[in-house]
């Protein structure tokens, strides 16, 4: 087996007593498009800074293209083959985009600036101070890719891009992946993960919750069944081994995520009058909610429609809690 493009092993960073990340282990193969998902403050940026040697780990190690980050001399060499977009890219306000790129070109090379600028145009001759957030982000894309890196590490690279440019960027990332470039990027946007990633690592409170193949994740995560009934629904009736998540929505309907065994479901439904019944594919949001639900609820994941909280379901059963056991299982899988 070849050397992983990115290998993070037991990476731990404490700021005094405050945990940045703890015992993080992720391995990314060459040519993979890898997502790193977590709510704000989960430790994504800390991980990326550790990986690039901007921070020193408290424990553990990280390597890129087989070279550990603490092997200073060799790692500097590797950095010549790495591109990076920081979380909030800050350039030199009084310097024009062109001169900024000239400067970076002098430090790490320039093989394809023009091609990138055609795709992600910016007002090159204006000082960066005058750039919009989107233009700054495009400049960040150009500087990250212009020396034709083998590995690209990006911290929320699409923030500030308008939707059309975002799509263009996704397309570009897929092309880069197909050329063999390894792409590692953090995001808190689930749709982005589904749209572009091959695999995803999920981080919460500085700890790795899961590393999953996107297709597997969606395939394994079953279907969402929604039942509306004039009767009061007892969650205990739906506690099958295949149940991934069951909850009573604020409007009194049952929302069940199940990986199969529809016979048992049909049997359980026999005791109820049914106004409406819907069975649909799991949206990625449903899947990821499992990873976050079991926690302390301080997450800021952009989870779209699945935001029903337990407090709101006052009119229904008290035990309208998601069942954490199964979720935990799939999380540790």
């Amino acid at each position: 087996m070849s050397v992983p493009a990115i290998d993070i092993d037991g990476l731990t960073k404490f700021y005094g007593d405050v945990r940045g990340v703890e015992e993080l282990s992720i391995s990314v193969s060459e040519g993979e498009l890898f997502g790193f998902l977590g709510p704000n403050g989960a430790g994504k940026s800390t991980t990326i800074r550790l990986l690039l040697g901007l921070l020193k780990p408290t424990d553990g190690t990280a390597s890129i293209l087989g070279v550990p980050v603490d092997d200073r001399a060799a790692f500097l060499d590797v950095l010549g083959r790495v591109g990076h977009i920081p979380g909030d890219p800050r350039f030199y306000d009084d310097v024009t985009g062109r001169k900024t790129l000239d400067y970076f070109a002098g430090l790490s090379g320039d093989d394809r600036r023009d091609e990138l600028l055609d795709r992600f145009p910016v007002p090159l001759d204006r000082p960066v101070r005058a750039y919009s957030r989107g233009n700054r982000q495009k400049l960040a894309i150009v500087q990250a890719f212009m020396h034709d890196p083998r590995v690209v590490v990006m911290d929320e690279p699409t923030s500030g891009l308008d939707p059309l440019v975002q799509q263009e960027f996704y397309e570009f990332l897929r092309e880069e992946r197909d050329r063999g470039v390894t792409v590692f990027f953090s995001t808190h946007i689930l749709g982005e993960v589904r749209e572009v990633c091959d695999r995803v690592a999920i981080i919460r409170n500085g700890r790795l919750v899961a590393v999953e193949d996107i297709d597997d994740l969606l395939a394994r995560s079953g279907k969402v069944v929604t039942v509306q009934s004039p009767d009061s629904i007892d969650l205990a009736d739906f506690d099958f081994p295949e149940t991934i998540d069951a909850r009573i929505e604020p409007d009194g309907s049952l929302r069940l995520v199940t990986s199969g065994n529809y016979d048992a479901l049909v049997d359980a439904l026999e005791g109820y009058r049914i106004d409406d019944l819907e069975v649909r594919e799991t949206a990625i949001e449903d899947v990821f909610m499992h990873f976050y639900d079991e926690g302390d609820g301080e997450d800021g994941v952009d989870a779209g429609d699945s935001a029903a909280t337990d407090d709101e379901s006052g009119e229904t059963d008290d035990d309208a809690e998601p069942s954490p056991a199964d979720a935990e299982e799939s999380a540790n899988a």
Partner: protein
Amino acid sequence: MRELDIASFEFARRRRGLVIVCVLLVATAGLTIAVFPSFGESDIDFAELLESYPEEFQAAFVGSVTDISSLEGYLVVELYQLVWLLIVGSYFAYAAGSLVAGEVDRQSVELVLVRPVSRTRFVVGKFLAMLPAVAVVDLALLAAVVVGAGLIDEEIHLTRLLAVHAVGGLYLVACVAVGLLASAFFGRVRRAQGAAIGVVFGTFLLDSLTVDTDYEFLGALSLTRYLDPGELLVAGDVDWGGIAVLVAVTCVLVVLAAEVFERRDLS
């Protein structure tokens, strides 16, 4: 040479500030020199006036000069001792305070140090950027003094003047190194600049206030202890030992700055 890329980029960004400093300094020199003729025409006994200053004041602002009726002596007291050593020195320490901390503070460092640029090279590049800046300021003042002296028809000892500016340049470079170390150590520009200017200003005062006291040895901490514009310009004595100290201190501070920066977390 990536240090030179870093240095030339940094220098280019500082050009505007540098022009302003030069203009202010040249104007100060011009005014100072313009006043000199009327100074000599008055019938004040300047030797007596100097004598009457407290010793600390003399040490700080007069230096070793005993006669300010000559243009050289006058310039040392009015220009080199105060404006050059204290104000321009503090300025360069302050300016250097933002060299590294500025990039860390504004996070642009995250776009630079993820390239094949070691932190040591980064620090050295930043230091090198200030050398032409010091040279420009140094030469601007030199030119202003030479031209000014010509305009008021005064003779000035050119070799000695060059010596003052050569040694003065080394002193300013040492001030830059003080700022560089503060800049590598602190993550915030304000703190780095405050520390840098505090050290240069504070040790200047220390050097002046401890003259002829039991604590005179404390003045050895000040860079100003190692050059004496009065000796250079009036007497023409070059203190090679002092020059060696200035150069050595600069080297040590730059190495320390690089080492401190290598070991730091950047965030």
